[in-house]
C-alpha cells in the first residue's frame, strides 16, 4: 500500500520506476542495434523493489548489487547518461567503459562495484557493514541479489557472519521466479534449485529477522526496508528479505517481449492484442502499471500528472541515449590505467 508514502514520495518513486523501465527499454533497443557489449540482464518487473528500498536509505549507506544492477543504480540516483554510456563501453561511462553492464557502479553514491559472480557480493556487503560498525557510523549496507544466489555457499557464509556480529546489513533477495514451480530440482537456468522451499528459512534459523514482501507492493517494500534500516542502525542486526516478483516474460534473454510500456494501460487496462499470451503481465505483474494504478485509485496523482512524469523521464532517457551514443570509445591508452590506485 503506497498510502504509507507522502504524495511527493509517491511521485518520486513512480518517476524512478519509470526511469528504470525506460532505461531498460533503451538498453534493449541498443542491444538490437548490437551496441551492448556482452550479455546483460534487465530489471523489468522488479522496479518496485529497488525503488522502494532505496527510498529509505541515507547517502552514507552502502548499496551493493549483482549482474542485474541497472535498476539499483537508477533507483540510487545514478546519472542515466553515465550509466548507459558504461553499459555501451564508452568513455563517458561511470568506469570509462571498463566495467559494463555486469559491474554497474556509482562510487560517489556509495554504490561500489557490482559483482557478476553469483553470491560473490554478499560477503563484500557484510564487510562494508563491518567497516561501518568499526567506524561507528550510523549507516547500513544493503545488498541486492537473486534467489539463485542462495544456492551458493558464499551466501550461507555471509549470512552467518552478519548474524554472528549483528552487523547492519539488509539482505534483499529478489526472487524473480515466484511463478516458477518451486519444487526442487527443476534445473532451469533461472529456476530454483533449492531444497529449502522457503528462502527465508535459512536466515531465520540464524536468528536474522526475515520478511517475505510482495514485490508489486511499493509501500510494503518501503515500510519493510525503513523498519529494517532502523533496526540495523540501532544495533539490532541484519534483516533478510525475500521480495517476490513475477518473472517478466522476457527475463531469460532481453527482448521486448511485452513491447514498450504504454503507461496509459494503467488506466485503460488494455492488453494489446499481440501480447495476449502475456496478459497477466499487463493485468497484474507489471509493477510500473500496478503502482500507477494504485496512485490513481488513491487519488495521489491524475493520469495527466502520471503522463507528464513519463514524458519527462522519456526525455531524460532519450538524452541519455544520445549521450551514450555520442560518447567516444575510451582511448586505447586508458586500457592500462587504473590497475592500481593513484
Amino acid at each position, binding site marked *: 500500500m503506497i498510502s504509507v508514502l507522502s504524495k511527493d514520495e509517491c511521485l518520486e518513486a513512480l518517476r524512478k520506476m519509470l526511469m528504470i523501465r525506460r532505461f531498460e527499454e533503451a538498453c534493449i533497443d541498443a542491444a538490437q542495434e548490437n551496441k551492448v*557489449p556482452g550479455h546483460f540482464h534487465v530489471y523489468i518487473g522488479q522496479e518496485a523493489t529497488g525503488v522502494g528500498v532505496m527510498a529509505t536509505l541515507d547517502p552514507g549507506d552502502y548499496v551493493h548489487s549483482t549482474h542485474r544492477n541497472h535498476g539499483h543504480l537508477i533507483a540510487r540516483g545514478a546519472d542515466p547518461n553515465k550509466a548507459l554510456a558504461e553499459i555501451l563501453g564508452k568513455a563517458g561511462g561511470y568506469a570509462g567503459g*571498463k566495467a559494463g553492464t555486469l559491474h554497474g557502479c556509482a562510487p560517489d553514491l556509495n554504490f561500489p562495484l557490482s559483482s*557478476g*559472480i*553469483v*553470491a560473490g557480493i554478499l560477503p563484500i556487503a557484510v564487510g562494508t557493514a563491518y567497516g561501518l560498525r568499526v567506524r561507528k557510523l550510523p549507516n547500513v549496507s544493503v545488498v541486492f541479489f537473486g534467489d539463485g544466489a542462495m*544456492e*551458493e555457499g558464499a551466501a550461507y557464509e555471509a549470512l552467518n557472519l552478519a548474524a554472528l556480529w549483528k552487523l547492519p546489513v539488509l539482505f534483499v533477495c529478489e526472487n524473480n521466479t515466484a511463478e516458477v514451480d518451486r519444487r526442487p530440482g527443476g534445473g532451469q537456468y533461472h529456476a530454483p*534449485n533449492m531444497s529449502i522451499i522457503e528462502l527465508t528459512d535459512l536466515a531465520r534459523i540464524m536468528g536474522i529477522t526475515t520478511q517475505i514482501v510482495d514485490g508489486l507492493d511499493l509501500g510494503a517494500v518501503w515500510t519493510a526496508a525503513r523498519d529494517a534500516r532502523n533496526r540495523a542502525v540501532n544495533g539490532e542486526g541484519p534483516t533478510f528479505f525475500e521480495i517476490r516478483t513475477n518473472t517478466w516474460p522476457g527475463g531469460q534473454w532481453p527482448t521486448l517481449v511485452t513491447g514498450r510500456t504504454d503507461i496509459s494501460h494503467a488506466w485503460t487496462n488494455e492488453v494489446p492484442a499481440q501480447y495476449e499470451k502475456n496478459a497477466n503481465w499487463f493485468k497484474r505483474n507489471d509493477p510500473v502499471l500496478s503502482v500507477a494504478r494504485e496512485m490513481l485509485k488513491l487519488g495521489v496523482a491524475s493520469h495527466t500528472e502520471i503522463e507528464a512524469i513519463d514524458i519527462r523521464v522519456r526525455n531524460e532517457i532519450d538524452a541519455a541515449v544520445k549521450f551514450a551514443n555520442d560518447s567516444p570509445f*575510451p582511448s586505447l591508452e586508458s586500457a592500462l590505467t587504473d590497475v592500481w590506485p593513484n
Partner: protein
Amino acid sequence: MEHTMFGEAKIKAVGDLMRDDERVVIIGGAGFGGLLHSQYVKPLFEEFDSRILRTPIAELGFCGMGVGAAIAGLYPIVTIGTGSFAFEAWPQICNEAPNITYMSGGQVKVPVMFQALVGIRISGAAQHSARPQAMLMQVAGLQVIAPARAADVGPLLKAARDSERPTFWIDHALLFEETDLYPPAKTPPALGKAEIVRAGKDVTIVGYSIDLVRCLKAAVELEKEGIDAEVIDLRTLTPLDWETVCESVGRTGRLVVADECYPAASVASEIASIFADKGFGLLKKPAKRLNFPAVPVPLSPPLEIHLLPTVSKIVQAAKELVA
C-alpha cells in the same frame, strides 16, 4: 574432417563417449558452448537427459560431487560453465581431486573431467574472462588439456578418459565455431604430445586453444609475405611437451608464443623458460611472448582487443624475428 566446427566435434565426442560407456555422466549441465551455442548442444542433452545432473549454482559442491562420483566408479564430465567459475570450486579441483591417487598410494582413482569455457570472450569483462590454465599447471596430479582443433577433440577426450587421471579440459568461449585450418596429423593425438600443425623453417610459433587458431591464421598471413612459419599446438599443458618445442626451435632459432594468460608465470613463461635450461643456446634471437597485459580484462571491446594477442600481433612479432 577439417570442415567440422570445433564445437560440433566436441558434442560428437562427448556423445560417443557416453554411448560407449554408461558410466560416463554429465554433472552441471551448463557447459559445452555456453548459452550462445545451446542449439548445438540440445540434441546431446536430449539424448542423454537422464545422465545429466542439472545442478544448482554451487560449483564447489558439484565439482566435489564429480570427485566422489569418480571414486565410486563413474566417469563424470563436470561442466563448470564460464572458466572464472572454476575459482568457486578451486579447493576441490586443486586440493582434493589431484591429491587422492597419490596420497592413497595409487589405490584410489579419480577419473573425473572438469570442463570450462575459459578465456577472453569479448565483452565478458574482468570477472568472466579468466584463463585459469597457467594456475592449473601449478597443480601436481591434475592433467590439463587445451585443444584447438576439431580433429583432436574426440581422440583426446577418449585418451583422457582412458588415462583415469583427474583432468581439466580447457575449452575456449570463441573456439566453438572455428574449423580446422590445416589438415590433421597422420598419427592420432596423444596426451602429452604437442603437434606441429604447420611445418616451416623460418620461425616457430607456439599456441594452444584459441591462441593456436590465431597462430595458424598468422601463418597464412606470413606465408603471403614469404615467411615460412612452423606452428605448434601444445594441446596438453600438463604434461607439457617441451621436446617438440625444443626440436622445432633447434631448427628455426626463433620463437613466438601466443598465450591469452597474464604474462607472469604463464604458459608462455613456461615455454620461454625452456630456453634458459633444456633448450639453452637454441634461440638465435630473443623470443617474443604475446600475453594479455597484466590488467583486469576491460569490457569495452576496443580496449579488450587492443590488449589481446591478435593475429596481427603474431604476424608482426614473427616478421620482426625473421627480419
